[in-house]
């Protein structure tokens, strides 16, 4: 942890703030504060410079125009790439997830991404809309991934990047895997928001940020979140 206060950065809410992804910020903050870890949430607009010393950077979903603009600004700003190289946590969703790769398609144009994950995104044959679920990569030690996807893109992972999960229901990256991670950089197509549906993933990000093992974080009363997860997963069968 860089300071006594956990600094959470919500990247470009003016461009990437659709689908309730702000919820990921709220959940991280709530789960940290519930354990006595003070947090500071900073919203940084696209005409402002991003801080270089934050602990967790969150990037949300958005439409094609704002997505390509956000990617250009993120590349020019350099803070997220620098922070990722320094081992800070980056968590991105949907359009933000695609930006983490080497390239993506927006408004029929190929755009450069940040290249933090070895992957590229293109257009799929149809829009992927609906519930998604699947087992998480065993390396992360997390329970089933669940969420709601709504994207037209498909993402192809290169050898340097691992999938976040396999898909047992839904489309995700390409019908077989969903999301990706490398080091402490994680991306997913999932809304719900993702961390509301997957509190263990939220805790993993927090544990990374504070430099502890996830099992060292005091457990929280997750009655409601667990019931929500069970209900959503049961609704798939």
């Amino acid at each position, binding site marked *: 942890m860089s300071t006594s206060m956990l600094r959470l950065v919500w990247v470009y809410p003016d461009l990437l703030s659709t689908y*309730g992804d702000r919820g990921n910020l709220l959940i991280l903050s709530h789960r940290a504060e519930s354990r006595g870890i003070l947090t500071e949430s900073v919203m940084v*607009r696209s*005409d402002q410079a991003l801080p270089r010393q934050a602990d967790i950077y969150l990037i949300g979903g958005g439409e094609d125009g704002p997505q390509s603009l956000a990617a250009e600004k993120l590349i020019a700003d350099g803070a997220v790439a620098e922070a990722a190289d320094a081992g800070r946590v980056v968590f991105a969703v949907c359009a933000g997830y695609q930006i983490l790769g080497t390239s993506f398609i927006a408004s029929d144009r190929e755009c450069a991404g940040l290249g933090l994950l070895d992957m590229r995104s293109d257009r799929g044959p149809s829009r992927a809309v609906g519930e998604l679920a699947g087992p998480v990569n065993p390396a992360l030690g997390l329970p089933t991934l669940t969420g709601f996807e709504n994207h037209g893109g498909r993402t192809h992972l290169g050898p340097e990047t691992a999938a976040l999960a396999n898909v047992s229901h839904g489309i995700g990256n390409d019908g077989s895997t969903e999301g990706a991670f490398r080091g402490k950089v994680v991306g997913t197509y999932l809304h719900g*928001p993702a961390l509301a549906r997957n509190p263990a993933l939220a805790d993993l990000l927090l544990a990374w940020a504070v430099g502890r093992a996830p099992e060292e974080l005091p457990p929280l009363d997750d009655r409601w*979140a667990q019931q*929500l997860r069970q209900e959503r997963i049961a609704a798939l069968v």
Partner: protein
Amino acid sequence: MTNLSARAKFATAMLRTAATLSRVSGRGDGSVIGGRVGLTIEPRLLSMLAAGRQVALISGTNGKTTTTRFTAAALEAAGPVATNSFGANMPTGHTTALAKARDAVNCVLEVDEHYLPRLLNEATPQVIALLNLSRDQLDRAMEVSGLAAKWRTALSAAPDVPLIANADDPWVTWAAGASSRVTWVAGGQRWQEDSWVCPQCGKHLDRYGEFWRCTACGLSRPSPHWAVEGDSAVTPDGRRIPLDLRLPGQVNRANAVTALAVASAFGVPPEAAAPRLSEVKSVAGRYAVVRRDGRRVRLLLSKNPAGWLEAFDMLEPRCPVVLALNAREVDGFDTSWIYDVDFSPVQGRQVLAIGDRRMDLAVRLEVNGVRFEVVEDIAAAIQAVPPGDLEVIANYTAFQDIRAEFDRVN
């Protein structure tokens, strides 16, 4: 009124028969099925029925059913009005509304946002009211910028049609901006999460109180001709018209002012129109008050983040509130949008979560630091609160479920 062709007359008769049959067999009010029958027999029926009449269209993400109801009430000062008062806001419903009231010269049609361009062509409106645009059912609907662009294109092609538009909504302002005849209303915009950036150029929008402006291209809030001040409407020439509404909230005062502006465009002065707005006590169950077991239950319908924020503004202080959330097809399957709403306004009162997706609400409220209870349904919620007032905020199908519990109260 123009004479209808023999085919159109037959189509109209069949429409009315189909609507009646559907209604008596208990399948809703028959607007949709009737319109479908009529338009199948005569595809131009909507245009034919609209010809020679004064048509107002009312569209926007939120408030269109209420504003349509207000406008119809206001125009009744000048005689019978044709209107789709059951919320059937697509061309089938419009056709039925026009067919059912053939003698009404004034027509007020609530229009689904996506159908506005089509209605602009087919209903040859004399005036169009544009209320607001915000995120709504994102897993299936067009996003805000796309919808605004669609409106702008359609409205630019008909620059002489008078518009009554909300100056407080940047997307509406931009969509209406190509028109040469806009009457601006200070319609309010509590929800600003969809207008961080300029609709015209994509740069940051600056806000100073209610004023907004793009520093890059200069697009800015037009000076409104009509406004709300306290409990009064202010007309373009500065007259204050008292509003004595039965419907709650700032947003309904803005809807009322829009209705007065439409009525004024049809020659009904606001002094004559305003008292009629006080007669509107509920709109298809919205704002209806029902009584059960010593509880007085008020029903509020809100379908999206902007609507929930407006509903919070209507709550009686300290009164217990039921929040009801479903995610069936018409609601949109994705409930993520509840994280776009700050629930802290419901803090400090008893909060009960119901609906198919009450677990989503539970997690949301917990993160928001709001104390809540999860109960099975509206009947259980009523038992869980003390006798007295109870507020209910529900999204679309959750609202219909609750209305069914109260014999489809209107």
